[in-house]
């Protein structure tokens, strides 16, 4: 069984590459029971969204062309 430390490392990797079936299964099983890691997972996704939004704000200017 992987512990929280290992699971979150996998979650991070999963943000940037496709994990193996076994790895995804391990994550899924773990986060069913572990709210901390579940929070880490959703918050990592949130941070990605925030980062994109942040960049979007930076480049927001009225006269910007596509």
């Amino acid at each position: 069984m992987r512990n929280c430390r290992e699971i979150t490392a996998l979650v991070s990797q999963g943000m940037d590459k496709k994990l193996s079936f076994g790895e995804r299964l391990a994550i899924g099983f773990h986060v069913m029971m572990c709210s901390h890691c579940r929070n880490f997972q959703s918050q990592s996704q949130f941070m990605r969204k925030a980062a994109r939004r942040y960049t979007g704000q930076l480049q927001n200017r009225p006269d910007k062309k596509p």
Partner: protein
Amino acid sequence: MLLSKGTKSTSNQLTEALLAEHRPVLFRYALLQLRDNELADDAVQETLLAAWQTASSFEGKAGLRTWLVGILKHKIADHWRRTVREVVTSDFDSVDNEEGEAGEGDENDFFMSDGHWNSGPTSWNDPEAALNQQEFWAIYEACQNNLPPKMAKVFMLRELVGLETDEVCRETGLSDANYWVTMHRARLRLRECLETRWFNQSKAKKEKRHA
């Protein structure tokens, strides 16, 4: 190069459309360093123009985007040489030799020796709503800037500029393994910072860890 020097052969490789595809990424890259839309736009414009003019020197080995980013870096460096402001850029390009800033101790701040969370992530109340609040973005920016320079660079290249993982590695000289570790630590830190300074503000659990 084997290509005959005429424009025909190079334009087969590098069309304007092909170059234009990379514009958004280049723009974000420039913007992060120049912090100014117009300057960033100019730098990208110059980059694409230079790329177009020197298309024959593109060897295709490193990949088009890597090549373009390389040109862009020069354009940005030129800009900083012209103006004397030294603001944000330094942490982008001159941190390549830092060692140990993301040391072993890093993850131990978050996990106990048995691999369980020290004080694990709590659930956040309506994160989506935060995205619409100006104050949140000040916190976000502060947290992002609080990351150690190299970590911040890796995180920004990936999540803000939007480079692919292997591109970030080339750009930063990180090995594959180091990339995963660095990104993970960046997420752990950023997450905790956001939690402490924004989402759990009321609970205000002061941590001793502070750069």
